[in-house]
């Protein structure tokens, strides 16, 4: 029952987050903005469309969106959705599998982009691997800090009972949230790392890698992107809203937390300009430093 509810929430809810972010951005720009359900409409439309494939591409291009979506879906099975819905699969070390499944998804997207032979997509792929290689230590240091704080190495137990962690390691938790929000902004290609709405190929990171995808392939990529936004958001939300309640209350709290998270993302995107491309590594390294500081604080507290 819980597993079914988990799957339902995980599979159906994520595109809504994109809608919320876009509505917040529209409000900042003085517009009404697209409907909150726009991504669902887009996905439905794309699934019913034909496709155009480049003559340069091979099976790798077609495998890109498929593998990427599959990996993200499996990663979702490891993520508890708030306190009420534990992950369908939880075992020691699932944190590692989660991170590496996202890496598999990225690898597939990057190869698909390189398969087009386009100079834009090549540049996008180059930027993507550079930034993700630098985001990786920040994510893993955060995992290490959480493992240390919660004495556990599985998402479901790491992300439960956060109240105690806040009481013990408050400042460290705040720094972790900072690091993870930076990782989430970078991994989900949001401002200030990337601009999901720009039309300028030369400045894109993620968007440019999917320029030549169309129809159902594009639908899979867009859906996968919203799943990734949801999954990284689930970690941040659970850390930031450590409150406990009964099961329906838990789910409601979690969903409300995610909506707040989407609003915050929208506000960040509306109030910052994009970073210059050569500044991005510095900010990602700063995220690692945040996480490392959190580790240090927790280490001292644990061994004290």
């Amino acid at each position, binding site marked *: 029952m819980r597993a079914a509810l988990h799957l339902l929430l995980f599979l159906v809810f994520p595109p809504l987050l994109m809608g919320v972010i876009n509505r917040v951005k529209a409000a900042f720009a003085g517009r009404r903005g697209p409907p909150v359900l726009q991504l669902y409409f887009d996905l439905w439309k794309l699934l019913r469309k034909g496709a155009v494939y480049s003559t340069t591409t*091979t099976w790798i291009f077609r495998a890109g969106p*498929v593998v990427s979506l599959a990996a993200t879906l499996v990663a979702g099975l490891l993520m508890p959705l708030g306190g009420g819905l534990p992950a369908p699969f939880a075992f020691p070390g699932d944190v590692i599998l989660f991170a*590496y499944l996202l890496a598999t998804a990225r690898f597939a997207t990057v190869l698909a982009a390189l398969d087009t032979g386009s*100079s834009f997509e090549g540049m996008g792929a*180059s930027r993507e*691997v550079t930034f993700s290689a630098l985001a990786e230590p920040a994510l893993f240091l955060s995992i290490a800090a959480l493992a240390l704080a919660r004495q556990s190495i599985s998402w479901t137990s790491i992300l439960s009972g956060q109240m105690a962690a806040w009481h013990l390691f408050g400042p460290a938790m705040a720094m972790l949230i900072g690091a993870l929000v930076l990782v989430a902004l970078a991994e989900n290609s949001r401002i200030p790392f990337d601009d999901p709405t720009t039309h300028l190929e030369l400045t894109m990171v993620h968007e440019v890698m999917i320029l030549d995808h169309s*129809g159902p392939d594009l639908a*899979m990529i867009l859906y996968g992107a919203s799943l990734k936004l949801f999954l990284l958001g689930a970690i941040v939300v659970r850390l930031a809203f450590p409150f406990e309640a009964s099961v329906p209350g838990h789910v409601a709290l979690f969903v409300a937390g995610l909506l707040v998270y989407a609003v915050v993302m929208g506000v960040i995107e509306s109030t910052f300009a994009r970073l210059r491309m050569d500044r991005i590594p510095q900010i990602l390294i700063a995220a690692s430093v945040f996480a490392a500081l959190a580790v240090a604080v927790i280490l001292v507290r644990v061994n004290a």
Partner: protein
Amino acid sequence: MGAGVGLVALSTGHPAVAALGFAGALLHVTNHALFKSLLFLAAGAVGKASGTLQIDRLGGLARRMPRTALCFTVGAAAISGLPPLNGFVSEFLVYLALLGAIVSLPVVPQSAAVLAFAVLACVGGLASACFAKATGAIFLGARRSPEEAVPQEVPAEMQLSMGVLAAACLGIGLAGSTLIAGLDPVVRQFSAVSLRETAALGGLTLVGALSAALVGAAFAAWLSVRWLLRRRTVKTGPTWVCGYPAVQPSMQTTASSFAQPLILVFKNILLPVRHQSGSSAAFPAALAVEEHCPDPIERFLLGPGVTGGAVAFSVARQAQPKRVQSYVLAIFITLVGLLWWRLG
């Protein structure tokens, strides 16, 4: 790294962590034997088919050699430690050992484990970047030197040997727990705890199951795309390049350019050397740029040593006397000196 954690864990009395470390190290060695051989075989196939091993002259081979491309891609993903392949299973064990150390070891090895954990993550990201670059530059996109002979797929025997190794990579990725159970007697030589007593085995079974789920989900998604497109128009056309009609293969990222942003981040470690000419004039007649990262050890340690040695020896040779008598005198002085040192 796995063996290191194992030793530290043993010395601090955490045999379970040690067992994981040793098992990871052993399995990783095995896995390296598999995917490295696979990559070398595929590189050999590329060299045989195209006549060159210069990465910036290749490109677009996947169209000509789809099976070799598949095998190389499997090898690349495996060496980057990506699920559902074998590289992930062994890295997973090492990560588990490190996490175990982080959670339970005393503070000094604990801190070292955190550091190792982050470094391993970064190395994983860099490996995946590097092998995405290699796969992309060799097999994907358009051919960079169309004037050379058109490469053909290598003979069946070569394909077979690569295929077996690729299948082994996937097999270990899906059934890692079985293999680990087989490794148990070896691990028990090092550690008092059997792998069966750690929680890792159950985790590995689930990793295998979820990896299988990944393969299955990807396959299902593939089929559903086929199904969705069955009555739709599927067209092919050139890659979108802003409507420019005269596209050339030089208009795609090269391996060096792909790596340049990363090299820039680590420029204080890698110390790239650049040769550039012709970009300062208002209307340059010619432009050239090349950059490479010489091995710092060779450049700063061995290089100066060898050159310095050569200089010293050439100076010594200048001092070499020309007459036989001088040699006799030198031998005599040396003898006297030695005698004086031993006897006096």
